[in-house]
């Protein structure tokens, strides 16, 4: 009797632990969005990737269609070479373009695919030519400051 009662409690304990691990994996982490489907890789070069990280989402029309797999520095063109894993069920025209966008004001950065009009679709190993770099806040601020300075400069130089 004692024996089988113990069995039940230990079983319950292990079950509870398993439920906790499942909860952590499914509800707290990203196992559900983890795609076990095959994907095809395409590359793209960016002048500046800002804060893009491996694992970031690739979205088209706001829907996740792939993930950033690898980010390297290309020593020849001095650009960032980004490898994307696109889900096989989504095909995009070859002249599609990529933009680095930010979700929200301070959210994480993702890649946006704007589909082109080419009749051929992207295949594995292709390179997406038209890319738009991340918006760097510091550059924006300095541009703004310089333009302000230019505007006010003639007035201040007047005697």
């Amino acid at each position: 009797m004692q024996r089988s009662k113990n069995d039940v409690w230990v079983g319950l304990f292990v079950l509870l632990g398993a439920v906790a691990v499942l909860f952590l994996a499914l509800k707290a982490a990203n196992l559900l969005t983890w795609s076990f489907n095959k994907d095809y890789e395409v590359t793209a070069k960016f002048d500046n990737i800002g804060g893009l990280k491996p694992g970031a989402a690739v979205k088209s029309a706001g829907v996740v269609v792939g993930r950033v797999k690898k980010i390297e520095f290309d020593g020849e063109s001095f650009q960032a070479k980004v490898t994307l894993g696109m889900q096989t069920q989504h095909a995009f025209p070859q002249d599609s373009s990529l933009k680095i966008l930010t979700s929200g004001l301070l959210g994480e950065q993702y890649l946006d695919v704007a589909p082109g009009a080419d009749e051929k679709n992207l295949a594995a190993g292709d390179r997406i030519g038209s890319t738009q770099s991340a918006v760097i806040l510091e550059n924006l601020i300095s541009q703004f400051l310089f333009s302000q300075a230019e505007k006010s400069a003639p007035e201040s130089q007047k005697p």
Partner: protein
Amino acid sequence: MITDMLGALGTSTRQMLANWGFAARLFFKLLGMSGAALKRFGLVQDQVHFLGNYSLAIITVSGLFVGFVLGLQGYYTLQRYGSAEALGLLVALSLVRELGPVVAALLFAGRAGASLTAEIGLMRAGEQLTALEMMAVDPVQRILAPRFWGGIIALPLLAAVFSAVGILGGYVVGVLLIGVDAGSFWSQMQGGVDVFKDVGNGIIKSVVFGVAVTFIALLQGYVAKPTPEGVASATTRSVVVSSLSVLGLDFILTAMMFSI
């Protein structure tokens, strides 16, 4: 005078080395016996029941309150920067990566490790271990190995329960009481917590802590002086040493896992 001091130094060094050697020998003996121990799974199961089920209450309650506190503190800091939506991410990452494994291991050292040391120390003091040896039963295999595996199985489960309950606690405070948006609470969490890098490494941590805490508790009980004072000091040492080694190991593991 000087030769006496040098002699004392030499003796204590030799003693320390011998202790380390004995500990290492016992550790590898326990590892070598894991097959035999896991074959008689009933014994291990009893220990999982004793170490795991009885620690569940303290782990659940502490996890809940740690989650509550993380929710409150995190909210007050995050809302200064206008990013209270990241509360879920903060709560989940701190629990899954650090607090879950570490606090569960510290509680486990106090709740289960101390009782293991006292139990084995009293067996030593009551000469039950010697009696087993007289009957040609290896006490390491019959007494220590099932407890070792019981601890290794129980602690990762307890740490997972701790983290899960803590996240629910953070949800209760952050979303239900303070009013952070539930959708962004969960979606920020899912966006930032990785299954293998965060949850997986947390589980690896708790397995390592399980090995360390259980082994230290068993060792301290096994080498305890067979007197009431000996058992008392062994129990104290077990909690102190295993808590410190959990914190030290945590630093090393964190540096190895998240250093990129």
